[in-house]
């Protein structure tokens, strides 16, 4: 698992009040580099989310790892995206497949964000990443 994610998770777990947790998440979002507009194609837009969520996925053949760039127009989703990126970015397909994002989010008390609600983009993002990894590990 990605080292950064561990650190982020620790910060979140040290925020006992949920308000503090969300403040940290929104801070994470702020630190996420903004996605270049050229990457914000219709294809990159995760469909059917209440918030706008863009996800750009690339597979680095040389390094055999996933490159993930994402953005959102909401602070919280952007923060959660930062968490997901730190969880998956730069991993090989088989490393990606070994990660259970549901468990990780559960541990952080953020599992509701992975609910199957169609308005919610986070689950769709995780599924896209997993699908790409599966495809590349064939």
């Amino acid at each position: 698992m990605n080292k950064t994610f561990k650190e982020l998770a620790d910060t979140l777990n040290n925020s006992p009040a949920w308000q503090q947790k969300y403040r940290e998440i929104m801070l994470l979002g702020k630190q996420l580099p903004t996605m270049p507009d050229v990457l914000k194609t219709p294809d990159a837009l995760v469909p059917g989310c209440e918030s706008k969520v863009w996800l750009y996925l690339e597979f680095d053949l040389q390094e055999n790892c996933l490159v993930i760039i994402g953005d959102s127009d909401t602070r919280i989703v952007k923060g959660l995206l930062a968490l997901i990126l730190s969880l998956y970015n730069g991993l090989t397909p088989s490393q990606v497949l070994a990660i259970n994002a549901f468990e990780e989010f559960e541990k952080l008390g953020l599992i509701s964000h992975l609910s199957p609600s169609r308005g919610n983009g986070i689950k769709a993002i995780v599924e896209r990443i997993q699908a790409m990894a599966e495809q590349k590990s064939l």
Partner: protein
Amino acid sequence: MFAVKKIRADFPILTQQINNQPLVYLDSAATSQKPQSVIAATELFYTQQNANVHRGRHSLSEQATTAYEKARDKVAQYFNVQSREIVWTKGATEALNLIACGLTEQLDKNSSIVITPLEHHANIVPWQQLALKTGAKLHILPLEADATFNMSACIEFLKQVKPTVLALTHASNALGNITNLSPLLSTVKGFNTITVVDGAQGAMHLQPDLNILDCDFYVFSAHKMLGPTGVGGLYGKYERLNALQPYQTGGEMIETVSLFNSTFRDAPAKFEAGTPNIAGVIGFSAALDYLFALDKNAAYDYEQGLFNYAVNKLNDIDGITIYSNLEHNIGTICFNYKDEHPFDIATLLDGFGVAVRSGHHCTQPLMTHLGINGSVRASFCFYNTHQDIDIFINALHECIALLD
């Protein structure tokens, strides 16, 4: 005085805790909560009466059928129309689809359909589909920038278009705005226009007398009227109703079936193919009993009081924009805080146990009309309290502190 404490005791869910805090449910426009009597009626049906309806010559089936048809009588009574003018569907969306599809043969490329920018997607997309199928032209009633009606402009518009179909909402689900239906409906009276009113939001809060309102069709969803999910229906003036083509086909709606040909019953049967949501309809019957027993005027005044109280409190907060019409409103506030995303506000409010809705509320064209991407919506029902609003406003202050 409206005895809200007594009312609340009828709604078991209202004692739920969310995130270790009391639930403040401000999302009744999405779906209302259910009184114990509705829950009990459903349970009673399954434990004592469950059988299919309109078939079988055994006692359970007769009992179930009687209870099921009694519910139809109650809806008819609620709207002051005849029982045979009520068709059961799974909700307002299906009811609107049933009407739009059923009109296919009555429209052609010379026909026109008028809707408003206020409509829920359920009262837009079926008409777009009908226009596509028949070549009819879709027109939009020209509303003000704030989505209110300039009545004389609208009347002028209707006089020019002489619509074949006029479909408009009784109350906006996103804004809560109440449509002043009478002048619009009477304008098209002479044009033989088929008038369709989307009562999903209006049916409970405004309980229209459809005999007086005199529209051709009125649709409703039980789940927004204290009733179960998966039930709704439509009223149709009998001649207009029976003139619609059948919608779904199958058992119970037929008169005779041979392998190559079938004939259909008259309305309402011809629109009720298959096994209906029997338990749902019987639960809705209990919901109607609840509404009959309620002092509707007192409840309405109380809801208006809640609405005004909340509007005043919101207006005290710097940076809040309210999009709702404050004069004619069923008790729904549509607002944003600065350019913060409604999703963030709703998510943070949930942390405080406050349930509001965020997003486009299935009214994307309205959002476009208002020049926004979405909004936060707080919608009230007579089981809400002033304390609910205090908690909501306090939570909103805390959200703002987290965001700013």
